[in-house]
């Protein structure tokens, strides 16, 4: 490097000294608060619930106390745990199929305006028709109930992935597309290096919606199918508890479902954060 160049570079550093500052981390106090507030609130609600049931002497077949629900959860764990596992299997299989199918179909859709015009309406029709109304038909057409449940959950989880990923693939920066054209990138290269990374935040938004919907749809389908016996999911255990007026168990099943839903949402949010934290606005703290 010549002296002039060295001087220039030194000047660069001096003038453009806006050296990347790491985003400010939340202070310890703020983080404690962020975890503390919801936890304190939860404890307060549960305590108030327990107090109300005890003081007003509400019968447990109307509203069981949190302690009773916890007892039911422990004593019926064998049955509830197995049911949960079955529901989870349907949920996750459907979610995986929806992710793979949604991404693949969105890639096909953006290939040509004609394909999109021809296929997208059917995706919309499948989405807007209430799954509970279609379930009886699907039950007739499938060999096993398990298949029917899977198809129902898949149909519901599929659309948000498809719609979001399609949107993401289509919203690629035109100048970047020009740049790829200038360097004679193949269609495959443009897809893999440009369009798919660009669609990632959209896909992840779809994933977060689809995760929750897959669980809901699995439960709704179980209600519609009314599976009994060893293959019964949580929804059936819920209905069964209601028939038998075993309200603590009903609540226990409900708690398990809510907890699963929250866990799915937290997991998909975490995946989204981990994949985007380095570059996407949604994962960054505002620096002002």
């Amino acid at each position, binding site marked *: 490097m010549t002296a002039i160049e060295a001087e220039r570079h030194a000047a660069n550093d001096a003038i453009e000294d806006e050296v990347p500052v790491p985003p400010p981390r939340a202070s310890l106090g703020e983080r404690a608060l962020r975890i503390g507030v919801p936890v304190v609130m939860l404890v307060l609600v549960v305590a108030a619930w327990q107090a109300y049931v005890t003081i007003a002497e509400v019968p447990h077949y109307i509203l069981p106390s949190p302690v009773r629900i916890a007892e039911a959860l422990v004593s019926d764990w064998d049955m509830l745990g197995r049911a949960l596992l079955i529901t989870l299997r349907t949920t996750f299989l459907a979610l995986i199929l929806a992710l793979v199918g949604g991404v693949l179909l969105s890639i096909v859709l953006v290939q040509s305006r004609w394909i999109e015009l021809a296929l997208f309406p059917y995706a919309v029709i499948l989405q807007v028709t209430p799954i509970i109304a279609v379930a009886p038909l699907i039950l007739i057409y499938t060999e096993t109930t398990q298949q029917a449940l899977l198809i129902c959950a898949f149909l519901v989880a599929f659309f948000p992935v498809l719609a979001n990923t399609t949107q993401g693939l289509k919203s690629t920066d035109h*100048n970047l597309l020009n740049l790829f054209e*200038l360097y*004679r990138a193949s269609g495959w290269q443009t897809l893999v290096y440009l369009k798919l*990374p660009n669609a990632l935040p959209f896909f992840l938004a779809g994933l977060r919606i689809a995760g929750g919907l897959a669980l809901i749809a699995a439960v709704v389908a179980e209600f519609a199918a009314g599976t009994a016996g060893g293959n019964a999911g949580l929804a059936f255990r819920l209905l069964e508890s209601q028939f038998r007026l075993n309200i603590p168990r009903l609540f226990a099943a409900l708690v398990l479902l809510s907890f699963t839903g929250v866990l799915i949402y937290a997991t998909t949010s975490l995946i989204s954060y981990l994949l985007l934290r380095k570059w996407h606005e949604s994962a960054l703290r505002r620096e002002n």
Partner: protein
Amino acid sequence: MAGAPPSPTSAAGGVPLVSLQSISKTFSNGTVALHDFSLDIGERQFVSLLGPSGCGKSTVLRIIAGLGDPTAGTVTWPAAADGAGTRHQREIGFVFQEPTLMPWATAYNNVWLPLRLRGVSKTDARDQVMEALQMVGLEKFAGAYPRELSGGMKMRVSIARALITRPKLLLMDEPFAALDEITRFKLNDDLLHLWETFGWTVVFVTHSVFESVYLSNRIVVMAARPGRVFADLAVDAPYPRDEDFRTSGAYNEYCRLTSDALHRAILSTMAVS
């Protein structure tokens, strides 16, 4: 300083690097962006395309780059062995008005892109990528993501990406328009320095009279509706140019001439519309 100082070759003398003949471009909405536009660009020229917005400056760049075909007319590469310039197209570097970086990729990966698209692996490209980053003074920021860089630094990455294929022709579409003046002056100086060192041909779209005079040895003033060449001015001031040039009488005189031509171009546009 490496390389012989480039001398401004007039369009008429020598074989032009790229030649646009009677180019017309009409967009699908009926807008006539260019009409009967002809321009020869000589090797090692630093040509500024100057004109009011809507005069088709960017369209000229895109047509040279092969992004979108002209409605009529031809682009030839007389200096290329095959004349058609298909090989030459690969030696074009393009810098857009925005940095146009991939936000999910580090500076290194953004600069690597043109080589990656040609199948050069990340490790094989290492020397070239680091050299390109060094040229724009950003070798320390190879691992930074675009959002972590200032506007000027992003533009430098964009320039490094355009330079990595060692292009013969560098097309720049108002690259510094969105930057503050201090950063713009700095980038102007660095660009001139690189140009003097490597001696590419540059076509630089701008709407700043001062920038065009400071940088180029030829200014093509364009008029709008339809886009056409209004005036073709030579800036014969010697290189290297620096702050002294910016305050010299010659600079002022060139600015006055260019400004005058630009005003007449704008008036002619208004008379037409």
